[in-house]
């Protein structure tokens, strides 16, 4: 079970079971069918290597279970070591190297010797410190690389790959809903251009349960009505209808199972109103850099400190002029794809056995942009980017 011999062959890409899943999923970019970009809050340092010192000993392989039972009974170590294997088999040695504890926990050799004897760990040699990664990355290839270069890690799979694989997407009605709000938005824009006094914002929201539309509202805010944003209006409309049709006052006021389609990344108030309403999913067309509170800041839909979560996707499809004009005017698209592009590079480096590039080094934006373009052009004509003009 604790066999740790590393096989240094070419790393294989993680295979996610795709039974019944006919969707085309790009797990690294978080992109489904080249149209829906997953918006999640990820730790920006997740794939950055940081080493910490730990105490190790060498033991005879026949003593391994005794030694392991001993060191695993230490529960007071403040450093989480669940991502590393406890035993390493080094090439050319007939001993096993066992990780005892972090140096943060015990700082001196004497303390470690004392603890090992109290734990009845059998004869050991070569007590010393080595450096191990302080956390595991979310890319298998990187996990293998850190294992090769530093210390064996435990790979439990990328949780988000499974989430992407389990995502149920019906592109037909998603597209139809988005087209509807996009057309309405354009209509409002045309009207405001015609009439000078008309200051209506071209923001439209539609709430649906699968293909069935239950509410659609445009933005009605004004100086005397500053909070009547389209999402708030939709929620009000649905809940007042529910109240009319439902005399039972049990907890049925929530919008569980409903999906929200909206032209613009919503503000903090609306994002949180959707948490309170327990919606299932939100898809938006265009990022709002100043006030948006999903991808632009806060990731309110995916904040572990708040009491609930929902899925969020940005539409990046380009086959329809009208919808794509909305989403792709947006130069900010690059911001979110950049880190993902950097991940592509990390994998490429390892895959081709090119160790000349320092993988922890920050990749310059221009370089990343170039990689991004290459990656997109090799996308075999799915046309994620269409004819977007990149204003650097």
């Amino acid at each position, binding site marked *: 079970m604790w066999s740790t011999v590393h096989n240094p062959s070419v790393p294989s890409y993680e295979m996610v079971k795709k039974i019944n899943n006919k969707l085309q999923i790009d797990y690294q970019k978080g992109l489904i069918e080249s149209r829906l970009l997953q918006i999640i809050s990820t730790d920006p340092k997740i794939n950055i290597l940081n080493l910490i010192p730990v105490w190790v000993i060498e033991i005879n392989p026949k003593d391994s279970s005794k030694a392991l039972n001993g060191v695993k009974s230490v529960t007071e170590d403040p450093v989480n070591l669940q991502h590393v294997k406890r035993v390493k088999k080094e090439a050319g040695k007939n001993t096993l190297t066992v990780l005892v504890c972090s140096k943060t926990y015990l700082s001196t050799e004497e303390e470690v010797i004392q603890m090992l004897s109290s734990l009845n760990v059998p004869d050991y040699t070569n007590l010393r410190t080595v450096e191990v990664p302080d956390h595991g990355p979310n890319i298998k290839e990187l996990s293998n690389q850190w294992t090769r270069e530093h210390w064996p890690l435990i790979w439990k799979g990328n949780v988000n790959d499974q989430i992407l694989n389990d995502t149920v997407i019906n592109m037909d009605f998603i597209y139809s809903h988005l087209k509807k709000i996009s057309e309405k938005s354009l209509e409002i824009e045309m009207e405001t251009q015609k009439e000078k006094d008309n200051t209506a914002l071209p923001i439209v929201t539609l709430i649906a349960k699968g293909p069935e539309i239950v509410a659609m509202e445009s933005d009605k805010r004004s100086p*005397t009505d*500053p909070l009547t944003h389209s999402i708030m209006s939709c929620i009000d409309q649905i809940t*007042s209808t529910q109240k009319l049709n439902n005399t039972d006052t049990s907890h049925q*006021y929530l919008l569980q199972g409903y999906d929200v389609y909206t032209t613009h990344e919503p503000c903090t108030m609306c*994002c*949180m109103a959707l948490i309170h*309403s327990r919606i299932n999913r939100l898809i938006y067309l265009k990022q709002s850099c*100043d006030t948006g*509170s999903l991808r632009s800041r806060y990731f309110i839909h995916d904040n572990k400190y708040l009491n609930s979560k929902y899925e969020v996707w940005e539409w990046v499809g380009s086959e329809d002029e009208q919808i794509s004009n909305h989403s792709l005017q947006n130069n900010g698209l690059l911001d979110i794809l950049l880190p993902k592009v950097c991940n592509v590079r990390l994998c490429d480096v390892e895959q081709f056995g090119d160790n000349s590039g320092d993988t922890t080094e920050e990749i310059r934006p221009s370089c990343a942009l170039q990689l991004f373009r290459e990656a997109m052009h090799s996308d075999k004509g799915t046309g994620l980017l269409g004819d977007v003009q990149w204003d650097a």
Partner: protein
Amino acid sequence: MTDTTTTPISSSPASHILEPKHHHFMKQALRLASHALHTNEVPVACVFVHSPTNSIVSYGMNSTNDSLSGVKHAEFRGIEEILSKTCSLPEFQTGGGKQPIEIFKEIELYVTVEPCVMCASALRQIGIKRVYFGCGNERFGGNGSVLKINDDPQVKDLFTGYVSYPGIYRKCAILLLREFYTRENGKAPEPRQKKNRVLKLDEFPEIKWKDYLTEEEFLRFYGLTNRESFQNNTDIIVPQADENEEADLFDTLMADPVQDISDIIEVSSQPLCLANKKQKLQL
């Protein structure tokens, strides 16, 4: 951002918290919360006060259960009432009145529980002057407990934000919430005798002042004498207040089967009176 309360700290040993209006208005909010509790709503409520005239201009109670809507928080009812009162002023209808944003910058909110992330954003978008609240909200508080929406410079809203001061009748606000959750669990104990009810300090979570205010903002409002509270995350001490005042208040709120709030409804149903002259609070 810094508050407009501009007296230098050193020259102002008497703290603003001693002004009786803060406890007076929070007490009204607590009475409304108690009313909400007795009508099976989450006991969170608020009053909006026009600060130049020291008058309650609207109120709100949580009504998520009655409306079957998760977004019907107390603050929204209060905001809507002010908006509709603004629009029905004769001078507004003839085109000469103040716009709502000019009115909100003279309005302060007293709410029993920290505004949630949604309400914090709404209050900022309307340009509220200042907020006072009782207890924090660890699950979705938007004035510092989870996010600090009220004055985060990251958001480029119309307004840069507002300062909020927590801790006014904090224990009472917490006890009302506890009362609701024990009732809902169906494990409501028999009402305890008044003399048995003791507010023990160690039964309450600490108040992490630094989540809500800088030390300077804190000292300006609560005074130098409360500096230790800021450092130790403990409740502020209001010298004149009777030690048992808060416990007695809670008992009074619990004693009435349904808290009579007709006086607050009456006051806030008056048309907006935006006299320029400052008026002292009549208690």
